[in-house]
């Protein structure tokens, strides 16, 4: 067997295991967006309608915005096989995350094939394998492949579109470019980031292939417009712009003067854009959102820093290389969508950035090893030791610390509330939930839709007309550890046995 193929298979297996092992339980619980996706997918699977009763919708109404359809329909398919489980919600992301590894290899192999400089071609020989290995162990990519995040699938489509475009450049087969365009459009329907990145990619293809000079490409342009039309109409509609205004970085400035806007908006955008390249984000803290990385870890491993910089340096020196163009194009465009929104930097919205980062690191490793002469063995051994240590350090934090420290970021407690309620629901006429547990309805719909409940605010009193009817009152832990009417405490994981919520009986 070809040694490259052998190593690639090993890398894919490693990547799959890192994304698969205990994925249903770690991250610890489904967070509210995953639950919403799961519930809608189940509704689609069983009734063909979303939670609001719309038949096979293209946009799924959700908390404060509308979700794009591709991931939800994929989860519906996954639920047809695995049932309504946490695993089924995360399965499409896990598979897309794993498949991105060989795809990156293929993409880079094709790029090497197109490289004209034979010396450079030789030097870059190991980059595809190395980059796909780094992607397989990337904490940034693992984090999002293990959750039900649409961005993982979107990134897969985006890279697939780019790969097919490279294949078109190589073989000039029409099907390559047609499928490439279709895949870019599919990415637009997968996650909001690609509503910016995919049109840019399509414009790039149009520019590169000089579509404006050819009359025979008119049907393709027309087809692209028709396929994008629903998304364009949706984006311009009040529902579609809801998300933009909710997350827009510009709306935070509250500038009404047009001249102030002309000066401030581009600067704000530039500041946000640069934040995605900050060392703080990449190597120290990440974006600070608990679901997006382990606390005190950046998006990349610390040992990768010198290699990232040297990869950058090496590519800057290869002025006429296609590797240079492709990597910088990916590097510079990936944060564009994220920079329009707040908070910035944002690890999820900029996940496509992981691809050029892995390429640069791989180039950096190859470049340094090729240039250090007699210290090669020592440096290589040192690199392997440090990288292995930091990788296990990450795994230790991921499996031991993360489920305890960040469980609330993942909606821990809600599932237990539903389970505890389900065990007792027959005893009570009314089930009342404190509004502070504001995501409870989604969790109840997903885990046990048969439970009927009422959401109330914290000052709620039992109405007199309910008389002596027994009521189960579910509320967050307000400090009272015991009481005669206390039915159950909902504990969080961890050695502190913190109480998250309580079930009280009201007579």
């Amino acid at each position: 067997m070809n040694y490259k193929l052998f190593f690639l298979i090993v890398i894919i297996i490693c990547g799959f295991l890192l994304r698969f092992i205990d994925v249903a339980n770690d991250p610890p619980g489904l967070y509210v967006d995953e639950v919403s996706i799961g519930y809608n997918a189940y509704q689609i699977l069983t009734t063909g309608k979303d939670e609001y009763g719309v038949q096979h919708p293209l946009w799924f109404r959700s908390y404060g915005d509308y979700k794009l359809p591709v991931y939800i329909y994929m989860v519906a398919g996954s639920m047809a096989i695995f049932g309504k489980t946490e695993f089924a919600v995360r399965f499409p992301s896990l598979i897309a995350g794993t498949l991105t590894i060989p795809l990156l290899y293929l993409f880079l192999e094709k790029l090497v094939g197109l490289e004209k400089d034979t010396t450079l071609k030789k030097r870059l020989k190991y980059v595809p394998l190395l980059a796909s290995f780094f992607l397989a162990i990337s904490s940034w990519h693992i984090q999002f492949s293990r959750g039900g995040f649409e961005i993982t699938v979107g990134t897969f489509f985006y890279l697939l579109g780019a790969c097919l475009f490279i294949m078109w450049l190589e073989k000039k087969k029409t099907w390559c470019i047609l499928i490439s365009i279709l895949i870019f459009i599919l990415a637009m329907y997968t996650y909001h980031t690609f509503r910016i990145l995919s049109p840019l990619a399509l414009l790039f293809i149009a520019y590169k292939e000089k579509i404006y000079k050819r009359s025979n490409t008119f049907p393709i342009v027309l087809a692209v417009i028709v396929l994008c039309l629903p998304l364009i109409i949706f984006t311009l509609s009040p529902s579609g712009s809801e998300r933009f205004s909710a997350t827009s970085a510009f709306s935070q400035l509250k500038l009404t003067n047009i001249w102030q806007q002309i000066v401030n908006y581009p600067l704000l955008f530039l500041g946000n854009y640069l934040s995605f390249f900050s060392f703080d984000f990449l190597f120290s803290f990440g974006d600070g959102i608990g679901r997006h990385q382990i606390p005190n870890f950046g998006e990349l491993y610390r040992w990768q820093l010198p290699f990232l910089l040297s990869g950058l340096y090496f590519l800057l020196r290869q002025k006429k290389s296609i590797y240079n163009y492709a990597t910088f194009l990916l590097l510079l465009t990936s944060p564009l969508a994220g920079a329009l929104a707040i908070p910035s930097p944002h690890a999820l919205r900029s996940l496509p950035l992981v691809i050029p980062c892995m390429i640069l690191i791989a180039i950096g490793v190859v470049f340094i090893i090729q240039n250090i002469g007699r210290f090669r063995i020592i440096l290589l051994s040192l690199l392997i030791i440090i990288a292995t240590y930091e990788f296990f350090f990450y795994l230790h934090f991921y499996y031991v610390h993360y489920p305890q420290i960040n469980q609330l970021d993942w909606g821990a407690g809600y599932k237990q509330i539903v389970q505890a309620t389900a065990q007792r629901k027959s005893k009570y006429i009314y089930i009342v939930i404190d509004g502070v547990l504001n995501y409870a309805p989604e969790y109840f719909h997903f885990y046990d839709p048969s439970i009927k409940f009422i959401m109330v605010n914290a000052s709620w009193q039992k109405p007199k007309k309910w008389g002596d009817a027994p009521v189960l009152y579910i509320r967050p832990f307000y400090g009272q550890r015991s009481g005669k009417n206390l039915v159950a405490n909902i504990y969080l994981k961890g050695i502190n046995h913190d109480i998250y919520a309580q079930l009280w009986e009201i007579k």
Partner: protein
Amino acid sequence: MGNKVTKSIIFILSAIVEVLTLQAWFVCKAFTDIFHHTSINLVLQLDDYIHADKGTPILFTRLFHNKLIQIVFDYLRFYLQFWDVRFGSNWFSLIGYFGIFAGFYYILANKQKKVYHWVALIIILLLPFIEIIGEPQVNIVIKSVYLWTPFILFSFYGLYQFLSHGNRTVRFIVVLLLLLISFLWLITLHNGIVRYCIMI
């Protein structure tokens, strides 16, 4: 000759923008904790980590949560703060930050490096340690002498090299554009230093 004049004008303008950028910091008493070793409490950090390690073999706990590793990670974090684009664009201005990286690039790319190239590189790379290890409460004016001036000189070297290579017209335009952005940045987004400065 024309080139020299243009270069001189660019350097003067850069110097003005960089001085104005620094001047914005004179409302600060000191840098925030994110730059100083004094903010580390190793015992507390390790206690916090070990607390969550219940049930983990002691070997792993010792391997992953020890003072050596924690110090290395903490110092790396402090050190990287100095090179962070968000800090750099506020402390040196955007054009200054660009010049520093151009300086690195051109020194590394120079195949006939002289001793002074190496000395400049080493000084610039080691300078942040003065702030990390040193006394945090040093007046910002004094701090600017040892922590700002060398970087700015290095940045000028980088800008000079950048303007002396490749297509000069394009590069002049790039630098002028950066200058304009740096200036607008300074007057419109002046609250960027809040994250890094303790006000007087």
